[in-house]
């Protein structure tokens, strides 16, 4: 597939997957790859844990305000990558400022108001964050917004929050906000989800569950799947003349059994979900540039 077509398929890509599958690595790599191609890209981190900073080589933790990221090895001029972290707390403060409540917003923040608000209308923290992303898309701050989605199973509850609130809230700004986010999520040209997994039994099971839940409960469009840590060397031939107890043979047997498990799981994933797949190798590095070029190489292989 043409790499440019790939990255302009939608304006927002939310990367989701269980912790430990390399979600942050993949989303940071995608963002950098798109910037290398010449797109204006915004990377959004939702989690408070560190991670993207190391991949991007930033000295300071990402905050609510965007910072510029050095695009390693740009292939075309004009590319541009910025990154920010959006938390519910910061999004609420921003919302209050923009709704003429800036004056009391500091007082509200100090009084732990988010606790009250979140308890009065659960899911509102998710809605505030999605609302901010929607506003950024609306303002066209970038050609592509890559969101490093929330950890683990939280992705489904985050994306179902707008529907839940839309159903439970009779009217007012929340309902309005929820409605607009539902529209955004339903429009594949504006927003897609890329799910990340590992070529192993449990992660594949979970990816399939999540994919169905997202399609049925949110109605969001799923982009290509990413399988991370794919071993690229096939099964090894072990000569019968070698000592079966030797380290070299035991290592080969270990490799072969992992490879068999991997091909079995990749085949099962393909059977369960008919979606294009990007296979990424194990990265012994956290350099954004290396990850980006692997991502670009794999996209070219897509049908």
């Amino acid at each position, binding site marked *: 597939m043409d790499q440019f077509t790939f990255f302009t398929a939608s304006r927002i890509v939310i990367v989701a997957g*269980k*912790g*430990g*599958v390399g979600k*942050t690595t993949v989303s940071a790599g995608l963002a950098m790859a798109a910037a290398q191609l010449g797109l204006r890209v915004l990377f959004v981190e939702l*989690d408070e*844990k*560190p*991670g993207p900073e*190391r991949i991007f080589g930033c000295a300071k933790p990402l905050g609510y305000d965007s910072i510029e990221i050095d695009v390693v090895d740009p292939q075309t001029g004009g590319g541009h990558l910025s990154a920010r972290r959006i938390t519910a707390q910061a999004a609420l403060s921003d919302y*209050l400022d923009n709704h003429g409540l800036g004056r*009391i917003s500091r007082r*509200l923040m100090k*009084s*732990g108001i988010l*606790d*009250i*608000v*979140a*308890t*009065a*209308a*659960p*899911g*509102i*923290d*998710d809605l505030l964050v999605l609302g901010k992303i929607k506003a950024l898309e609306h303002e066209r701050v970038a050609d592509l917004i890559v969101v490093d989605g929330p*950890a*683990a*199973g*939280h992705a*489904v*509850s985050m994306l179902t929050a707008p529907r*839940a609130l839309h159903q*439970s*809230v*009779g*009217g*007012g*700004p929340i309902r309005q906000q929820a409605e607009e986010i539902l529209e955004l999520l339903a429009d594949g040209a504006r927003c897609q989800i890329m799910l990340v997994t*590992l070529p*192993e*039994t*449990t992660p594949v*099971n979970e990816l399939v*569950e999540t994919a169905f839940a997202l399609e049925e409960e949110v109605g969001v469009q799923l982009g290509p799947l990413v399988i991370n840590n794919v071993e690229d*060397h096939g099964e*090894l*031939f072990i*000569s019968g*003349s070698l*000592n079966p107890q030797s*380290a*070299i043979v035991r*290592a*080969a047997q*270990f490799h072969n*059994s992992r490879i068999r*498990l991997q091909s079995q799981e990749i085949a099962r994933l393909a059977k369960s979900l008919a979606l294009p797949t990007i296979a990424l190798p*194990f990265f012994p590095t956290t350099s954004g540039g290396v990850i980006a070029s692997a991502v670009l190489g794999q996209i070219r292989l897509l049908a």
Partner: protein
Amino acid sequence: MTFERILEKSSIIICCGSGGVGKTTTAAAIGIAAARTGRRVVVVTIDPAKRLADALGLSTELGNEPHQIVSPPTAPGQLWAMMLDTQATFNEVVRTYSADKEQVERIMSNRFFRNISKNLSGTQEYMAAEKLFQLHADARFDLVVIDTPPTRDALNFLDAPNRLIRFLDHRLYRLLLTPARGGLKVFAAAMQPIVRAIARIVGTQALDDALAFFRAFDGMDTGFRQRAEQVVKLLRSPNTSYVVVTSPNLETIDEADYFVSKLHEEGLSTATLIINRIQPSFASIDADINERDGSTHEFSELRRNLDQLNRRASDQALSIAGLVAHVAPAPVIYIPLFAHDVTNGESLGMVADHLVRDSSNLNN
């Protein structure tokens, strides 16, 4: 303290870590290892994925009540397992603290209650803490092993009872509760901007629904508060052990490290660090390889594979060094990456073997 000693003296073991590190599997394996020493263990998973059931080879789903596990064998102790049902637990709580049937009815029919008792943020953690407390008090068990939601949520879990107390103590909440009838008009003038701001964010409808819920809830808050305080005490008891679970890749190591720091900030300590799925290392090239084999293409492929696996093993050792130092003097247990995934009772038993074997090696 060795891990055996932790299994022996703890009455609660809380497994923390990010998703995908084998936390549920580890919780189940800890349950098996403890039961083998004669303890009566219940393992609770509050992770939405039904993995514990899978790992234990159960074909039926685990309900909100513990079921005894017969395979793998756990004599002389017992192993029970359950999956938290947030809604059902919340309903139990309402029934426990309500004054009468009418109050139960009023609460259960409230839109706001139906909304929060589903899987929306925070509720799951409150209910997990409640369930933990119930099981701890249950005479059938002498050890509760709890599998928490992934890192960020696991912190909420630790904070859930405190959050509840803070919420109940909140000046604003008290003011919201004060008027017995009437809408927003009755609030004191000083409260108006804040109430208006909340209404602006959540809408008057949601605020009204919430107020109706809190009024229906009136009188139950004392029971709730007492329970929350007891849970806080329980989470800080010396017999409650925090086990941090991770896998050896950079992302999950970061999360585990973050969790260890958070525990420390809370004045709690990591009892044991368990690192799952460690790449086994192999001896370097054997001496007994003959010349003819050594020169073939197949052989150089095998050699490349051996080198690659060993390099990966030493890279992993390097990546986890900081975390291992961070949890010291807590024992660290290494569970190797198996040739196959841990998906049945037998392989779960193997993990349980490693838990005990490894820690004794490290601490003798």
